[in-house]
């Protein structure tokens, strides 16, 4: 397989095209991810921002093909990793990619480690599963990784159990495990949400350093716009299963075009600017993604809503420099009059 792959040419390390992941529930079909596309290159950090239920996590579980089926199903689209469609791989080929090529850090460091096993056991297991090495070599590698993520006295601490580590330390162990197989893509699903600000700063710094050192591409899922501003090269803003805006980080913050992005950025109080009076706020609640009508899902909360928003989903418009936005405000006249 690897020979065949080496001969293939590809332009992006990871390319997601029109991915749709639906869940079947008693209440109807939940379109958790509804036709999203993005690309990721080597060494790039991509941020995915959105509120709970916007489909950020499902997107990434889909990339790893970790969607439980039933009830979930990837109904359409392709995920090209080094030019090869992950969705068409067999279970054993998948296992080669998971952990080896693409690995993942989960949100909650308290529950992602097995409390019954020593850190050493868990790390050695991970490494030996993916690489052909002896226990001894794997242990040496684990200690090296723990040192890399800044765990003091790694030789001794590796034989501890997870409960003997604090939250920040456990997240470091998770990162060490995720990076131990020199994955090309690291998916970090809200890696710092459960942690305090000072620890968050440590962990983010660590991810950034490591991705530079190992040239790993990172997909960072978060709801914190501050974290995105500091870490990411490109940002996708998700709302109700769709990417509503995609841009280089600087462009997005300098010129947030979708009313939702604008609202999100405006509604966070900022440390560096004293504010008096009211915060900007997006009224209403995030939509229920069950049986969404084919209109713009943001229209009930939008402060710039027009008639057409209530009946049709807006086309995606390129504003230049890869800045894409799906909003009728930016659509051409011709598209407005269409139909």
């Amino acid at each position: 397989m690897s020979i065949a792959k080496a001969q293939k040419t590809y332009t992006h390390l990871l390319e997601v095209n029109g991915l749709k992941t639906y869940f079947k529930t008693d209440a109807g079909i939940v379109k958790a991810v509804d036709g999203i596309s993005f690309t990721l290159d080597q060494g790039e950090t991509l941020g995915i921002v959105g509120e709970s239920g916007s489909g950020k996590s499902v997107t990434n579980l889909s990339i790893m093909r970790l969607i439980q089926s039933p009830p979930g199903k990837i109904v359409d689209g392709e995920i090209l990793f080094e030019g090869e469609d992950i969705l068409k791989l067999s279970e054993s080929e998948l296992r080669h990619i998971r952990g080896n090529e693409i690995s993942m850090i989960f949100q909650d460091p308290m529950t992602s480690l097995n409390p019954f096993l020593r850190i050493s056991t868990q790390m050695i297991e991970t490494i030996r599963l993916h690489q052909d090495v002896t226990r001894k070599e794997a242990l040496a590698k684990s200690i090296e990784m723990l040192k890399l993520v800044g765990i003091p006295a790694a030789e001794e601490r590796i034989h501890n159990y997870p409960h003997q580590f604090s939250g920040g330390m456990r997240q470091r162990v998770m990162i060490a495990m995720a990076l131990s197989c020199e994955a090309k893509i690291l998916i970090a699903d809200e890696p710092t949400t459960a942690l305090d600000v000072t620890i968050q700063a440590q962990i983010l710094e660590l991810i950034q350093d490591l991705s530079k050192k190992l040239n790993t591409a990172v997909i960072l899922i978060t709801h914190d716009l501050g974290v995105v501003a500091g870490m990411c090269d490109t940002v996708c803003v998700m709302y109700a299963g769709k990417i509503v805006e995609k841009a280089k980080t600087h462009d997005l913050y300098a010129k947030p075009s979708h009313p939702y992005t604008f609202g999100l950025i405006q509604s966070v109080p900022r440390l560096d600017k004293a504010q008096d009076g009211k915060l900007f706020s997006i009224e209403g609640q995030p939509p229920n993604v069950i049986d969404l009508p084919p209109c713009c899902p943001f229209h009930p909360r939008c402060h710039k809503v027009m008639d057409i928003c209530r009946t049709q989903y807006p086309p995606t418009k390129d504003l230049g420099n890869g800045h894409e936005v799906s909003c009728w405000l930016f659509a051409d006249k011709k598209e407005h009059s269409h139909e």
Partner: protein
Amino acid sequence: MSNIQKQKPLLEVVDLKQHFPIESGFIIKRQVGAVRAVDGISFTVNEGETLGIVGESGCGKSTTVRSIAQLYKPTSGSVIFDGIDLVNAPKEQMLDARKNIQMIFQDPYASLDPRMTVRSIIGEPLEIYRKRGMLDPSIDKEVIEKRVEELMERVGLNRAFKNRYPHEFSGGQRQRIGIARALALNPKIILADEPVSALDVSIQSQILNLLHDLQKEFGLTYVFIAHDLAVIEYISTRVAVMYLGKIMELSRSADLYKNPLHPYTKALLSAAPIPDPEIERKRKRIILTGDVPSPNKERFGCYFYDRCPHRMEKCKTNIPPMKRIDENHEVACWLYE
């Protein structure tokens, strides 16, 4: 805002300590130590202002407000509210005073009873005090019913939903229910324990705006806990920075952010991300090493000693007292002696 210092404090906390015993043994329990959740803090809260408390998890923020509300019996110290020492007052008097102290909790899913309707949740504080005979006798079932409807409208809930159960509401709406419940008894002070940290960004600003409006309308006083520094800056008049059960710095909100003095405050502020890539990428971070140490042992030096980038020999063995730098700024650090 300029005449804050002339007002008399509504709430005064003096050397409050809240230790939780650690017990060992199966049948015969004996105390083997204590978790020093709050270890001697003092502050005042003036009428109509918002005191923000920030700090990392485990620093004792939540314990502080729970001790103020007398949900725990403080180990020592006093909580003087409106001239009454709640810790030592007789129960009747304490209950009467506590009518004016209400809480909003962090988790809108866990803080509402799933088997109660919205009407009974919001009306419960009134019912309880009516049964205790501590309310005006003119307040009967009908008045309570009306009050519940008024409160629902005020916090932005449709009064038609009063017979619904909490699971039928989203997180932000549930938090509104919690706020309505806190307002039911017309309290003077509301203790808000991370009321927005479980909410989505767009909902967070709705709730902050609501709390802001309510404060103006009813002249409420808030003690507001959050770990998000930007939220604290936005809502607070004064801010207390806590670490390991101690107050490290206490200052007017604007001064704290412009001129942080304590090394811990500086590190905390530099660690908080700012949502602007231009600024965010140029900032210098003070990265603290290590984690928050265990609060189980008694300390004889500065509580921040283990992680402080500026520690001195003196800090190891002497606890720095709160030192007043100017009228509105106090700090507990030997650097400012």
